[in-house]
């Protein structure tokens, strides 16, 4: 037989027919399909024993109790603790995915710790005259905050700076809540507590935008943007009716005269009749709580007039501290520091709280000031600080969470360290304590011991969902249980006097053509990092406005030459930040709706004035 092309074709043909009659080709096809479903690009879940561990969420001061479902000791999902007396089982969208934060791509894993230490010590050695070393603590009230205060007392010219803590609120005591734009249902207080108390009070929300809180309110007053002052003073006029109340700031009476009810109606767009009805309701349906933006003088004034101190505003004792800690530096306000006097500034922004604008800080810095910030990412003060040192993120650190604004009694609870942090992270309290030669590694345990020693309060244990008086818990067990997620809640002090309510001075008239838009904040303050899964609500749906984004009415957007997706800068008199623009006809004209990310909140709050310019 010769090797002809024909024979070759016959051979091949035979082989093909033969092959079709074997399992081979069919098996190859199915195997390829299986291979394509299993290529290494798709990661697989780990197997392992499922356990439940408890802790508390430190992403915001609410400190909601968390139950973590863990596979081989790695948290894979988080949920609330249903019977918890403070959080009632609620966990917000950010807290639910908090266990992703250690793996966030923007999270810092190492930093110039040695250089920062050197620079700080060198600067401390060169402090002359009245130059100060300051710690700026954005979430005061923690045990770390006490470490900072003790360290600053030990360092020459040490100063501890923190934003003023708001007066504690007893929401359960309120029968009527009048909110001037406060986001009661979206990032205020403890979500579970607000929801649990909701059925017991009537909520009146005065806000230019129909926010989530406005949707849930019993009555929404769609006031004109920036008219909170007019409405509040109009109501104050009706409530006071020539009465005099002690404690109102200078110039209040003059300002009152500018806003009789007719003027209030004209400015706010709410009818005079309705304003009168509102005033009557606030007078008759007490106890009343008036809420506004943090530090709002209008809310404070109305609270004073309506007798809230002692009823819905309460004096809250702090959780006990060891006696020898009390020789610590006092809490000072940034404004009280002379300009240009801070030579070393250490900022702890690892625990989010109220943001301070950089412009306010900058004026206090001396020439050649050394600024070190402790943060999860570079997006906060890292943009301006000389050194950014990474810290452990929420699921990696054992840290205490001070009580939230709506907790009438003190609470001591710890976030658990479920995941090991990267090697390069720095503990800010240890860093600062080291500068002062203070041994503070066991501060949390010492604080727990002091709390237990006081005999006050009760301990809620999440695993058994039971509360026990603290003095019935053995001291060793007390610390162990706190580390396993238990919450200590102080007894309510029945004989506590009413808190002293300081009404801040009313701001000067604000209308400025340079900043034509009124800022309305419609998203909660988010921590510096949020789980990438928040894209579900930011990008894959239009449920929430993403951090560092603004929304404008079509006419305002047109006037600024912007459209959805434009990059722009949001500018206020405190600074500017880069933002993404969304055009939304739901936004009232004259308003710029902003999300609450770290950059934006440092330059404005609700009712600030701003402009948006194309980048």
């Amino acid at each position, binding site marked *: 037989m010769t090797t002809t092309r024909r024979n070759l074709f016959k051979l091949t043909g035979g082989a093909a027919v033969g092959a079709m009659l074997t399992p081979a080709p069919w098996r190859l096809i199915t195997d390829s399909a299986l291979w*394509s*479903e299993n*290529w290494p*690009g*798709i*990661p*697989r*879940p*780990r*197997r*392992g024993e499922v356990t439940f561990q408890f802790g508390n969420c430190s992403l915001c001061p609410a400190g909601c109790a968390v139950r973590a479902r863990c*596979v081989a000791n*790695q*948290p*894979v*999902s*988080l*949920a*609330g603790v249903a019977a918890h007396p403070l959080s009632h*089982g*609620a*966990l*917000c*969208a950010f807290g*639910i*995915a908090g*266990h*992703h934060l*250690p*793996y*966030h*791509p923007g999270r810092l894993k190492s930093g110039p710790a040695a250089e920062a230490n050197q620079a700080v010590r060198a600067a401390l050695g060169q402090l002359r005259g009245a130059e100060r070393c300051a710690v700026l603590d954005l979430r005061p009230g923690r045990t770390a905050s006490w470490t900072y205060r003790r360290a600053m007392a030990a360092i020459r010219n040490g100063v501890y700076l923190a934003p003023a803590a708001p007066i504690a609120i007893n929401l359960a005591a309120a029968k009527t809540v009048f909110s001037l734009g406060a986001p009661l*249902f*979206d990032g205020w207080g403890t*979500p*579970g507590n607000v*929801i649990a108390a909701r059925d017991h009070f009537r909520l009146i929300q005065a806000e230019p935008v*129909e926010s*989530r809180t406005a*949707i*849930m309110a019993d009555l929404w007053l*769609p006031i004109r943007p920036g008219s909170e002052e007019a409405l509040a003073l109009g109501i104050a006029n009706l409530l006071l009716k020539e009465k005099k109340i002690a404690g109102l700031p200078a110039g209040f009476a003059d300002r009152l005269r500018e806003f009789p009810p007719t003027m209030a109606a004209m400015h706010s767009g709410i009818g005079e009749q309705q304003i009168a009805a509102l005033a009557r309701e606030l007078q008759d349906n007490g106890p009343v709580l008036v809420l506004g933006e943090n530090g709002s003088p209008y809310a404070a004034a109305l609270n004073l007039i309506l007798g809230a101190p002692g009823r819905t505003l309460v004096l809250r004792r702090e959780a006990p501290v060891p006696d020898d800690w009390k020789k610590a530096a006092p809490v000072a306000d940034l404004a009280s520091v002379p300009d240009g006097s801070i030579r070393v500034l250490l900022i702890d922004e690892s625990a989010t709280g109220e943001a301070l604008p950089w412009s306010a800080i900058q004026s206090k810095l001396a020439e050649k000031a050394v600024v070190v910030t402790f943060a999860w990412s570079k997006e906060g003060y890292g943009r301006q600080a000389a050194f950014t040192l990474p810290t452990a993120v929420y699921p990696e650190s054992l840290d205490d969470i001070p009580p939230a604004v709506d907790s009438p009694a003190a609470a001591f609870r710890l976030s658990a360290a479920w995941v090991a942090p990267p090697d390069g992270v720095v503990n800010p309290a240890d860093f600062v304590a080291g500068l002062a030669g203070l041994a503070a590694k066991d501060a949390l345990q010492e604080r727990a011991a002091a709390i237990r020693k006081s005999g006050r309060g009760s301990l809620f244990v999440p695993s058994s969902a039971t509360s026990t008086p603290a003095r019935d818990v053995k001291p060793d067990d007390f610390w162990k249980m706190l580390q396993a997620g238990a919450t200590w809640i102080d007894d309510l002090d029945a004989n506590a006097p009413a808190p002293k309510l300081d009404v801040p001075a009313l701001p000067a008239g604000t209308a400025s053509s340079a900043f034509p838009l009124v800022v309305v904040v419609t998203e909660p303050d988010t921590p510096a990092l949020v*789980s*990438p*899964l*928040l*894209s*579900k*609500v930011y*990008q*894959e*749906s*239009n*449920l*929430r406005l993403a951090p560092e984004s603004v929304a404008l009415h079509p006419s305002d957007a047109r006037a600024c030459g912007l459209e959805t997706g434009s990059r722009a800068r949001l500018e206020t008199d405190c600074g500017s930040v880069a933002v993404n623009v969304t055009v939304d006809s*739901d936004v009232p004209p004259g308003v710029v709706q902003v999300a609450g990310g770290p950059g934006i909140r440092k330059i404005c709050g609700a009712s600030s004035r701003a402009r948006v310019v194309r980048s």
Partner: protein
Amino acid sequence: MTNPNKPVKAARYGMAIDIDRCTGCGACMVACAVENNVPPAHAGANDRKGITWIRVYKVDNGGDGDGRRSAFVPVLCQQCGNETPCVHVCPQQAVDVDPATGIVGQMPERCLGCRYCMAACPYHARYFNWWDPAWPAGMEKTFNPDVAPRMRGVVEKCNFCHGRWHAARQQATAEGKPDTEPVAYLPACAEACPTQAISFGDLNDEAGVTAAAARGRDSFRLLEKLDTDPKIHYISKREWVRRIADAPRPGDGKESRRG
């Protein structure tokens, strides 16, 4: 799954979602993605190409200024019970209705990605993996082992957290309970909702909270006129919300027409 001598009582798992309690916080959306290993958005994803097994929509009454009112409506797979549209059209039989639970189960491993089911679903509750799923490095450690991640090119949707259903049945067996009663469990969204607006349970259990809420006067379902018999009931005292769902109250005289 059981001793054939002991008949199993079939469950019909469903939900009663109280729209008047929904604050639009989005906790349910995030909890669902955490539980089901849904990847974070690809750079090109938007609200039409993203994957949100449960999605909260904002609806309003069409009013202006003072008269405007809004509400939030969480929409997920309605688990249609009658002539389930997606089951009908799938050329691969990659989705089926479980007679024991009523759950419409999507099997991404059988799916070939034709997206016919996405066209058939009247509730837009099905989502396609346009891109390879990608997670930031290390985040795969947080996967839930009870749910398999999907690949690019397949459709996925809510399965009422059947991984939790499996775990609940396994736990009941371990505790020695008989397998004849449907198990009680909570899907991730119902567990996460801070206001407890989402109630989940067996609609066949007349005495249960969910079934009772579903029978209430204020309860309605989306697109009733399509006769899909969905198992998700919505509750609202506000008339305009019911109107949006095209859901007249029974006995109103407005006949629901097939169309």
